[in-house]
């Protein structure tokens, strides 16, 4: 007897078959002793379960009783998750992941801030102001990081006015 026939027989036992289908099963039962034996067993089991269940009464309305059980299951599951011992490597990972995320976020904020600051035209450009009619020119050697600002004023007039004994004052 294959599984499909067994399921069909169980459906018949539960009263789920009607009309033509029920007639087919009854014809099959009439000529197959194995099928009759299985049906008898199913009916006995069904009767035993019904008897057992009849003695039980719920202490509270059905919905309330099951919701209480459901709440207790969830509470125990949560507690188990909290207290579950974890290997030290996993524990370290659990700490490093949020810490790494925080560090990455801070780094991102810092880099974006720096980028914005550098792109700010008011900040990016170096500013120079020459006074007293001074002509200046600026040269920058990027490879050596050297900036030269050459001033014509007070060249050979006041600033570098030679004093006896000191060539630079």
């Amino acid at each position, binding site marked *: 007897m294959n599984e499909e026939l067994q399921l069909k027989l169980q459906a018949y036992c539960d009263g789920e078959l009607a009309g033509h289908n029920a007639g087919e099963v009854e014809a099959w039962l009439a000529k197959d002793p194995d099928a009759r034996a299985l049906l008898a067993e199913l009916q006995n089991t069904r009767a035993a379960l019904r008897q057992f269940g009849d003695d039980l009464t719920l202490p509270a309305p059905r919905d309330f009783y099951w919701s209480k059980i459901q709440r207790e299951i969830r509470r125990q599951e949560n507690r188990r998750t909290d207290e579950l011992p974890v*290997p030290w490597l996993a524990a370290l990972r659990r700490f490093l992941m949020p810490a790494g995320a925080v560090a990455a976020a801070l780094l991102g904020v810092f880099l974006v801030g720096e980028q914005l600051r550098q792109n700010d035209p008011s900040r990016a450009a170096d500013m120079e102001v*020459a006074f007293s009619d001074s002509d200046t020119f600026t040269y920058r050697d990027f490879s050596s990081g050297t900036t*030269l600002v050459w*001033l014509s*004023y007070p060249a050979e007039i006041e600033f570098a006015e030679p004093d006896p004994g000191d060539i*630079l004052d």
Partner: protein
Amino acid sequence: MKLTISRGLQARCVASALAFFALAGLAVQAAELKYEARLIWATNDKKSPDSKHKEVDPEIRKKLDTLNLKWANYFEVHRKQFSLAKGAVEKVAMSDKCSIEVRDVDGKKVEVSLIGKGEQVWKGTKLLPKGDILVLGGNAPNSTAWLVTLKRVE
């Protein structure tokens, strides 16, 4: 080996990490930057008439050579190191008549003013990363030149 980490401990660890990063950031911001200013005489003479003048350091010499100036020798007349806190101003006398005023701008740039005989001659704001050098210069008598260099040391 098993280790139990409660959510409370995890939260404390994350809070500690945040505090660490914040304090580290504040410490970096609060640190003072060190600068070195030099007054240099540029000449083609092989020796300075003042025996106190020494030839400039090879590092500065190398930087000056990249500018392709016409002078062959550079003698250090005066050198001064100073620290600058964020937003602070330092006036550094380079000689009797020459000084520079350096102001820190947002911890990265410097505003440099050149003062000659009490008058502000030039003012500029520069990004001066560590190792970079700002050279202010002008002609001096007898085809020589004066240079004021400013370098961030730390």
